[in-house]
Each structure stands twice: as C-alpha cells, then as structure tokens.
C-alpha cells in the first residue's frame, strides 16, 4: 500500500540574489512568492547598516553559498550596485541587473528552462515593457 502522505516539494534552487535599500529586496521577493509561489528562486539580502566592504562580502558569500550568478539591485548608484560591479570584475560569469522592478523578477522566476544570466537579460526586456503611464496627459 502506498504512503498517502504527499511528498514535500523539493526546496527551490536559488538562482538570483536581490539586494537594495531598506526593505526593497524582502518586499519584492515577498511579492514574487505571493504571486507565483516561486519566491524561493530568489534570495533577499538586507544590507542596512553595512559599509561598502561588508556589502560586497555579503553578496560574494551568498553567491558562493547558493551558486547564484545573478544579482538584482534597485538603484544604479546604490551601494549594492557598486558592490555588484566590483564582483563582476572578477566573476565573469555573473550578471548584475540595476533598476529591478517586480515584472523583471516575475519573468525571471518562470524562466527555469534557461541559464540564469540569459533569463535575467530576457526579464529586463519584460520589465522595461511593463512600465506605463495612464491617465491625464498620457
């Protein structure tokens, strides 16, 4: 007789790190989880109170721990983006996406059939196209 208890789903493989100001990362990953149930593909990082060196070290350690080679950040001039650029200098297989929005991450988490860097590039196009202005004067 077979066991009636359904097997627990395998834990998602982390394919990207999300980092930014305040609760940006946790908020976006929470939204991705709520919409798709695939928030586990992303790892949110809080860098509040960290200096530039510690931010870079935190991102590097997470990349080593998870194997993720994609970093999503919020602001081009932000400390996380600066740290990401320093990491790209030595990690030629990594990709940094600045200016991340929710549509970018939604596209990314569904692209599990392609390599993560390629998925990130595709997601950026979707994210750009998802921005619109409606209403007065539009």
């Amino acid at each position, binding site marked *: 007789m077979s066991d009636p208890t359904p097997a627990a789903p395998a834990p998602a493989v982390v394919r990207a790190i999300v980092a930014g*100001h305040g609760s940006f990362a946790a908020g976006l990953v929470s939204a991705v989880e709520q919409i798709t149930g695939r928030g586990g593909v992303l790892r949110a990082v809080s860098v509040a109170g960290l*200096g530039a060196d*510690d931010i870079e070290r935190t991102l590097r350690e997470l990349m080593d721990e998870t194997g993720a080679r994609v970093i999503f950040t919020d602001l081009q*001039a*932000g400390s996380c*983006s600066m740290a990401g650029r320093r990491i790209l200098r030595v990690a030629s297989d990594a990709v940094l996406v600045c200016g991340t929005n929710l549509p970018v991450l939604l596209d990314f988490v569904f692209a599990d059939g392609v390599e993560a860097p390629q998925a990130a590039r595709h997601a950026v196009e979707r994210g750009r196209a998802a921005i619109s202005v409606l209403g007065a004067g539009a």
Partner: protein
Amino acid sequence: MTLVLYRIDDRLIHGQVVVGWGQPLDIDFIVLVDDAVAGSDWEQELYRMGVPPHMDVYFLTVDQAAERMTDFRSNPHRGILLTGDIATMRRLAERDPGLGAVNVGGIHHKAGRVQRLRYVFLAPEEEVQLRELATRGLAVSAQDVPGARPVPLGELLASDDVFD
C-alpha cells in the same frame, strides 16, 4: 554657486548622495577626495557609472583638492564634496581654511569602532579627529539624509547607547 555640502561617507558615491542629497540640493557636480580612488582609473569608472550623465565628478587627491577649492567654491554650479573617512576631511581642513560645515553621513562598522548612531561607528582616533575639525571652527554634525535630524558633534560622541 559653490560647494553646498562637505560630507564624510565611507560609501562615497551612492544612493543617499546622488539622489537623497543630490536632488533636493540640485547638485551639478561631485568632488570626490580620496587618494586611492584618484589613482585608479577603474575605481573612477565605477563611481562615474553611478551618477546621472549631467553630473560632473572630479576625482582628486587631498593635495589636488586643496589647490582647487577656491575654484570649486566660485563655480557657478552647485556641488558636494565627499571624503570616505574622517582623516581625509581633516587633512583637507588643514590645507583649506575655507571649508564649510562638515556632515558625517555614514561611517559603518569595522573592528575597533563603537556604534554612536545607526549609521555612525567611530574608533577613538576618529573621535579625536572630529573634535579637531570642530576646534577649527567647523560645525560638525551627523545626518544621513536631508529629512533626518542633524545630530551635533557633542551629542554624537555622547550617544553610546541611544541609536538615532
């Protein structure tokens, strides 16, 4: 116009500087004073990528900056001067008597430092350097973003258990 903010921030050019201060102060240029960055094309390229295209960035050593401070202060545009540590700002103050009020914007955790505010950690020698800036007649206060309350130096150095 002139230099409208003299800021110590170990992240140098980042969101709080470019957007948080840069937009309300209507900044056109940044003077980044750091001997190491001034000697590295790669570091300069990194920081330049973080600023809008219309904003000029000058990467200078302390000596170079001291020579050009009069020019910067008489510049028709508005600028922020940045150093990554207190020692660099103090060295500049020694060379330039015209330095304005000093904003402690972000000095983060490192071995040997004690937390004074959420965004300010200081080693004993750094406290001495801040006091030296004050004895030169410079108003020194901590303030990470424009909307935050400026914390005067005396209060900053006394705040070892209350994080603002």
